[in-house]
């Protein structure tokens, strides 16, 4: 595309590799839910893993890593605003803390 930026674009092989990683993480996520020993560590682990998947898809499949920063900024505002605002809302309901 015309707005290509210095970094080399991924190839189909990269895409498939990423798909494999995505699959692996998903499998790990599901596995974690079945391991009772991980009870208290489960939530943070799951969140980290799903964030990793999220970033992989956004960064590579959606080319955000390779595109103009303007796109990233438009999306990032929404992406950052969402947890901040709703974090506050849920906090005010006494969620997020104490459980």
């Amino acid at each position: 595309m015309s707005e290509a930026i210095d970094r080399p674009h991924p190839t189909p092989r990269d895409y498939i590799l990423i798909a494999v990683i995505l699959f692996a993480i998903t499998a790990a996520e599901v596995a974690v839910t079945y391991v009772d020993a991980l009870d208290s560590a489960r939530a943070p682990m799951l969140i980290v893993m799903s964030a990793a998947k999220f970033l992989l898809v956004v960064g590579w499949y959606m080319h955000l890593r390779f595109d103009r920063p303007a796109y990233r900024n438009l999306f990032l505002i929404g992406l950052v605003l969402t947890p901040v605002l709703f974090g506050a809302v849920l906090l005010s309901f006494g969620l997020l803390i104490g459980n």
Partner: protein
Amino acid sequence: MATLNPAVESATASHHGRKGVWSWMTTTDHKRIGLLYGVSSLLFFLVGGVEALLIRLQLAAADGTVLSADAYNQMFTMHATTMVFLVIMPAAAAFTNYLLPILLGARDVAFPRLNALSYWIYIFGGLFLTISFFVGGAPDGGWFGYAPLSTQVTEIVRMDYWALGVQILGLASLLSAINFITTVFTMRAPGMTLMRMPVFAWMATVVAFLLLFSLPIIAVGLFEVFLDRNLGTLFFDAAAGGTPLLWQHLFWLFGHPEVYILILPAMGIVSEVLPVFSRKPLFGRSFVIFSGIAIGFMGFGVWAHHMFVAGLGPVAEATFALTTMLIAVPTGVKIFNWIGTVWGGSVRLATPMLFSLGFIAMFVIGGLSGVTHSIVPSDTQQHDTYYIVAHFHYVLFGGAVFGLFGGIYYWWPKITGKLLNEGLGKLHFWLMLIGFNLTFAPMHILGLRGMPRRTYRYPKGLGFEFWNFIATVGSLTIAVSILIFLINAWRTKARGRVAGNDPWDGRTLEWSISSPPPEHNFDVVPVVHAEDDFWHRKYREDEEGRPVPIPGGGDPLVAGPDDPPIHLPSPSFYPILAAFGMFLTVLGLVYVPLGLVLAGVGVVTVVWGLFGWSMEPLTREEH
């Protein structure tokens, strides 16, 4: 004079003869769409104003009997919904549509057909809300439709009209927000860097971002209300464990950014008018811009100040009190810079300037009373009283409406080619200023003396009679001033003075082209070298920084044979079709389950519209 570029000529010719209703229905010209927005919002202003007058008549004396309780509740709900969603927002959209491309040196917005779609959804949405008066009553749950009152199905359809109407109006705004953002990012003329953009364009951009990020929240909230009412979901049903507070959060997460959506365009207008009529550039221009951005960001962090008596707990209340107070800082920066602009200038008190100065004076009052609301303990006395009603009319009417009228007087000659009468304009201003203060200043007193809002009557013996009567007199005075404006507009059409390209000695690009502008805006796309580029074409500064006219500097640019051809969007019938489909859809949804048939027809119409749209031959590139 050089001959016109043939491309310019053909663009002018092919669009010249277009007249008639059909051409308006299919127009994709941002200026025509802007005009449509403007005229529609003015009409709705009369509707919302008549609703306000009925409210005032009912309250003129104790135990008023002009309206029944039921009619009164519909009246203030529809008054607010109309004024907010059908008047101020579209009026801002009118200015943005008409001016944004011109201010940026562009020939249109990024997506002209999408732009038309926004307008048609808006007008059908407005129609949809207004017909509710004639079919079983209008919405009556207040403009923020607190659940579970709004989900309590007493009147079968009323709040459905509200939920769906506001929903599609939101959709219209969301589409135009995306459109404006894209326009600003991609359509600026060469040399028009972001920091050279006129302040109005900046404020329009901030508004577009606020819309972009706040509308989805209310969209979900409105869906939840609608589903609670019609599908039996339990989002706000306390008995089942739902919590009404959720709705309050969702509404105000949108609602507070919304109030800045309402005021920032007016602030942008004032920032354009003050420099021109002070013959000085805007003082602290970058600070005005950045404080606008700061207001936008901070606007997302204060919503719970509308819930100070809802029981959030002292920690949350303290936090939101602080964020709310802080918003006074960037707002103050703007006020002071505006005064700094006037200071040391050569002040011409023409009507646009009067309205802009009136804006500053009145907005400060509303802003300061806003700060008194942020004092949580005081707000427990003020909340839901006329003191709040006073606050928000000072910022909404004293602010937004004054600012918008300033813009109307300022750009009227550009848009119509004729100058509004100054004498009548000044009469309008002074009457409105007096009427406005007569109406809303007493409400401060009433509120502190314990008069609750949204009450259709008050008993004798509470001491509310006198100031209410004054307020009613004031509102009638406002009505007279509006009539004077209408007369002025009418007279100007017939025998107004011809304006010429640049009647005010303007600073920005719109004054460099003819009045009214040609359909393609610019014969030559301007190359921008400075902020206030047009002013710099007309003047240079001497050693002491005083302007020295450059002979012939203000003459229009003329296209040469090498200039690239002009592309203009072709008219399209599909936007209005798709919007009509949405109208049918929501109308059907009000009357579930039978209405689902109509809704189905509506959805098919929407799909038809969108399909035709995407299949429409791109004889001209879609910009």
